[in-house]
C-alpha cells in the first residue's frame, strides 16, 4: 500500500511539474531532447509532388553543429540531380545565411524575405528548414492542450520576416518529439507537417519520414531520412563559407 501511495505521490508531482511548465519551457525541453549530440549528419531524399505534375526528386545531405540548445549551425548540400549538384546552403544564425551556386563559384548572403521563398521549389521555406534541425523560433508559446499523451502548443512567431501568423505543434510526450505542425497564414491553415515512422537510431528516437502538405492540396513534399550519424568528428570551422566552395566534403 505504501508503494502505491509513493507511486501516486511521484505521479502527482510529475503532473504538477508538467502542468506548471509554460509553452516556451515545453519547447525548450523538446529542443533539448533532440539536441543531445554535438554534430549530426543526415542523408535525406526529398520528393516534391505538385498537382498534375511529375514528381521532383532531390538527394541532400545536412550537417548540424550543436552550439548549445539556443544555437545550431547547419550546412545543406544537394547531391543530386546532377544539374544542381553542389548547390549548398549554410546557416550560421538568423542573420548569417549563405547560398552557394556551384556553377558560378559564387556565394550569396541571403536575407530578409528571401527566407520565405520555397526551398528548392518544395513546400518548405528557407525559414522552415530550421525545423529540421530543431532550432527554437522567437515567438509566444501557449499550451492549447496538455493530455496524457501529448502537448499541443500554439506558437505565434515574433521574429521579423516570418510569414506565418501562428503554428500549432503537437508534441508526443513519450519522446518529446513533434508529430505534427500546422502552419497558419492570416488565421487560415496554410500547410501541415506530419512526422511518421518513429525509429530508434544510435539510442535516439526520431522520425524517418516528414510530410508537408499544402492545405489547398496543390503539393506535397516528403522528406525521407536515408541515414543519420551522430557525433562525427566535424570541426566547428567546417561550418564556414570556405566549405561551401569545397567540391568534395570531408565528412
Amino acid at each position, binding site marked *: 500500500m505504501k508503494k502505491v501511495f509513493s507511486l501516486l505521490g511521484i505521479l502527482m508531482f510529475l503532473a504538477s511539474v508538467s502542468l506548471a511548465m509554460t509553452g516556451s519551457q515545453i519547447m525548450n525541453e523538446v529542443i533539448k531532447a533532440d539536441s543531445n549530440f554535438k554534430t549530426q549528419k543526415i542523408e535525406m531524399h526529398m520528393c516534391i509532388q505538385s498537382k498534375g505534375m511529375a514528381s521532383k526528386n532531390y538527394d541532400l545531405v545536412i550537417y548540424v553543429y550543436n552550439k548549445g540548445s539556443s544555437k545550431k549551425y547547419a550546412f545543406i548540400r544537394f547531391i543530386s540531380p546532377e544539374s544542381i549538384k553542389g548547390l549548398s546552403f549554410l546557416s550560421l544564425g538568423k542573420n548569417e545565411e549563405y547560398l552557394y551556386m556551384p*556553377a558560378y563559384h559564387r556565394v550569396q548572403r541571403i536575407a530578409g524575405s528571401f527566407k520565405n*521563398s*520555397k526551398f528548392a521549389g518544395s513546400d518548405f521555406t528557407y525559414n522552415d528548414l530550421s525545423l529540421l534541425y530543431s532550432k527554437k523560433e522567437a515567438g509566444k508559446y501557449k499550451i492549447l492542450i496538455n493530455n496524457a499523451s501529448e502537448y499541443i502548443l500554439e506558437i505565434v512567431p515574433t521574429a521579423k520576416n516570418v510569414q506565418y501568423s501562428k503554428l500549432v505543434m503537437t508534441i508526443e510526450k513519450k519522446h518529446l518529439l513533434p508529430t505534427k505542425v500546422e502552419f497558419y497564414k492570416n488565421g487560415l491553415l496554410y500547410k501541415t507537417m506530419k512526422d511518421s515512422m518513429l525509429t530508434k537510431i544510435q539510442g535516439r528516437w526520431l522520425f524517418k519520414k516528414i510530410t508537408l502538405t499544402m492545405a489547398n492540396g496543390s503539393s506535397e513534399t516528403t522528406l525521407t531520412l536515408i541515414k543519420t550519424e551522430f557525433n562525427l568528428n566535424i570541426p566547428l570551422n567546417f561550418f564556414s563559407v*570556405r566549405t561551401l566552395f569545397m567540391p568534395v566534403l570531408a565528412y
Partner: protein
Amino acid sequence: MGKIGSWISKHRWLIIVLFTIVTVFMAYEASQVRIIDDITKYVPENDAVVSFFNKVANEFDMNDLILIGMDYKDLFSKSSLNNINVITNGIKEIRGVKSVISLTNAPWIEAKSGSVEISKIQNFVLNGGNTERLKKEIMNSPLFKGQFVSPNGKSTLIMVSLNASMSVQQSIKVTKNVENYVKTHSLAQKIYYSGIPPSNLTAQKLAKKNLETLIPLSLLAVALILFVLFRNTLGFLLPIISVIVSSTWSVGFIHLIGCTMTLANVAIPVIVIALGNAYGIYIVNKYLEEKDKDHTVRVFNTLRDIGIAVVLSASTAIASFLSLLTVNINPIRDFGIFTAVGIAFALLTNIFLTPALASFSEKHLSSKAEKSNRFGKNLGEIILKHKWAFISLTLISIGLFSIFILRIQSDMRLSVLLGKQNEVVKSMDYFNRRFNGSDFVIVNFNGNATDPYLLRSERLISIYALNHFKGVVGESYSLAKIIREMNKKFNGQNYIPSNRNKVQNLWFLMQGNNLSQLVNSQRSETVEQLRVNPSSLKEIEKLKKSLSKFISKYVFKRYSYVNISKCTHKEKELAQESLTTYLTAYLQAKSLMASPTFIKSVVNEAINSTADEFLKRHAKDASNRIINYLKSFGMLEGISANTISNLKSGITESFENGYSQNSLKNALEKSVGLNTEEIFAPIIENQIPNVANGYKVNYIKNLLLHNIKGLTNEDANSLALVLSEKTVVIPQKNGKYSFKVGITGIPIVYNHVSNMLINAQYESMMISAIIVFILLMIQTSSVLMGFIGLIPVTLTVLFNFSIMGAFDIPLNAITITIASMTVGVGVDYVVQIFSRLRVEFKKSGDVHDAIVKSLATSGRGVLFNSIASSGGFAMLFSSNIHGLRQFGILAISTMIVALILAVLTLPGVLSLMPYSFYEKAFKLKKER
C-alpha cells in the same frame, strides 16, 4: 398553290390557333436565348492556327485572360500597394480563377548590400518597407516597369487567368464575379478591363440590349411605313404580324435546338423582319387586288397567281443564306442557317397565316391605289422609252464605283465590330496607351525551357520585335528576361549564360514562384509574351512574317554545346560561325551596323584569346578584387594587415608568373604559410575564372564599343559576355539539342479568321449565283432569262462591295452576310417582276404592255417592300454596335439599289427581248 389557298380558307381558325400556340411557345424559348461571342470558337477546333493557339494558351494560362488596369492617385503609397495585394489575393479565391499575377505577387528580385532576395512585393507591403525606395527600384526594374506598372508610374496591371476547362458562359460568370470583386474592393480612381472574357461579357450585354431594342424598333418602323403606304389596316397589320411571328420563331428556334447567338447574329431577327415583310406585302397586295366577294376565291386566286413567286423568292433567299455554309467560320455558318430558317418561317407564315387572316377582310384595293397603278404604268412607259439611258447610266456608274472594291479589307476584330466609342475599345485604348499594348502575340518555344540557347534565342527575338515594331510591340515578358535579370542581380552579368548548370542554378532559386504563364510544369515549353497594340491587323501580320523570317535565318534548329578550350578544329570553326551569327543577329535586332570584317575579327579574338592571358596583364588588380571578395564574407577578419598584404602579393605573383593551381599554392604558402593557404586556396581558385574572364569581357566590350556606332554600354557588355564564354553553342545537323518556335496569339487568330473571310465570301457568292441562276431558269424555263435575272443581282452585289471599299467598311462576321442578303433581296425583286410579267404577258400577249403592267403592279409591291425594309434596317442606326450600324448602311443601300435595278434597269433589258423569246420562255404555244 390555289388548292392550298382553298384549304387555308376552310381551316383559317385552325391555322390561327396553331400559329398562336406555337408563337407563344417560341416567344418563351426566345426569351431564354443566350448570347456568347468568342473569337477562339469562331473556327472549328481542328483548325491548325486556332488549335495551336488553344494548346499554347491552355498550357500557359492565357486562353481566358483578364487584364485589369487600375489608376491610383499614388500607386506607390502603402494604402495603394496594400489594396493591390488585397485585390490580388481576393481574386485568387474566386471560384474559376486559376492564377493571378500582379505587382504584389510577381517574383521580385532584389540585390542589396551584398545579399539577394527573391520575394514578392506583398511581403514588403506586409512588413511596412520604405515605399520611396521601392518606387525607385520598381521603376528601374525591366521585369516590373511596363509589365505590372505603367511607364509613367501611375497605373498597375493585374493579369487574371481563368480555368481553361470552363465553358464561355461559365467564364463570363467568373468574369462578372471578378469585376464585382474589384469594384467593391478597389481604391483605384479608374478601373479598366481587357482580354477575351471581359470582351465576351460586354459583347453579351451589348447583344442582349440590342436584341431587346432593335426588334421592337424595326417592327415599329416597318409598321409605320406600311401603314403610310397601304393606308389600310390590312396592308400594314398582316405583314407586321407575319414578321412578328417569324422573327419570334427564328430566335426561339435557336434556343430550342440548344444553340447560342453571337454579336453578329443579333442582326438575324432584323433581317427576317426586313425581308420577311415582303412576302406579306405581296400576298396582301394581291389579295386586295382581287375583286371577288368570296374570300375563298380571293385566297385561291392570290396564292394561285403569286404563291409560286413568293415560294421562289423565299427559296432563293434561303438558298443564298445557306450558301454561307461554305464559310468555315461558325457564327457565319450559324448566321446563314438561322437566317434561312427565319426566312422559311416567314414564308410559312405568309403562305398560311397571312391569307387566313386576310380572308376575314372584305376590303379591295382603293381607288387611290388604282391611281397609283396608273402612275406606275406612266412610269413604266417613261422607263421603256429611255431604256438605253437607264441601262447605260446604271452600267457606267456601277462600273466606275466598283474601283473601290479593291480597297475592301477583312477585319474580324471585336474592337472594329464594336466601334471606337464602345467601352471594350476604350479599355483597349487605355491598355495600349498606358502599357503599350492590350493583347499578346505569343512566341512559343517547344523544347527544354531552361536550355541556355533557347533562352538566348527568346531574348534575341524579343529585342528584334521591340526594336523593329516600336508602335506595335510595347513590352515583352519571358523566362529569358527573368533569368537574365537574376543573373544580373546575383552575378552582375546582364546576359543568359551558355553554361547549362549556371542556368540551372538560377532556375533553382526561382522555383516555387508562380511562372505558369511563362513555363509549363514539365519545363518542356516556354513562351515569350509580346504585348502588342493590335490596332492594325496588317502590322500584326507583318510582325508575324518578320519574326518567322528572323527565326528561320538566325536560330539554329539543332545544336550542341562545346567547350572551346577542349574542342576539335572543326567544332572551333562552327563555334566561330555560331558567334558570328549571334553577333550579326543581335546587331540586326538592334538595327545596328558593323562590318563583316570586324565581326569576324572580334569573334576570332574572343575564341582564340584565353582568360589567363588577361589575368597576367591585370595581375595586381585581379589580386585586389580577390582580397575584396574574401573581405566581403568576413574571411579576413582577425587576420593581420601584414598577412593580408602578404596574401595579396602572393596572389599577384602567382598571376604575373602565369597562373596555375600549383603556382598559386606555392605563392600562398610562401606568403602566408601552409595553414592560411589551406583556408583561402579553395575560395581563391574558385574566383580566378570569374575575375580573369571579367578582363576578357572588358576587352571585348571596348572593341565592340569602338567599332559599332550606337551600341550602348549595356548591349556591349551583354555581347562581350556571350563572346567571352568558354561554352559555345554550335549548329549541328545531328546535334543533341533542338527546339521548335511557333507564333500565336489572339491577334494572330483574328488575322487568320479575317483572311478566311475573303475566300469564304467568294465561295459563298459563287454558290449563291449558281443557285439563283438555276432557280430563275426553272421559273422562266430559259437560260437567257436566268442570266437576265442575274444582272440586277450581280450589279447590286458589286455596288455593295464598292460601298464597303469606299467607306472603309471591313468584311467581318456581320458584313460578310450582306452579299447573301443582297442576292436574296435582288432575286426577290426579279422573281416578282418575272412572275407578274408571265401573268401579264399571258393576258395581253404584248411584251411592252406586259412590262408596263408588271411595273405598275409588282413594281408597287417591290417599292413598298424596299421602303418598308429600309425603314426596318434604318433602326440599326440606333444600335451602339458599330458593325450593326455599318450593316444598316449596306442593307439600305441594297434595298435602294436592288429596287432601282429591278424597276429602272431590268425592264429596259427585258424589253430588248422579242415576242418569240417570251412565247418560248413562258411556254405560251404549248398552253394555247
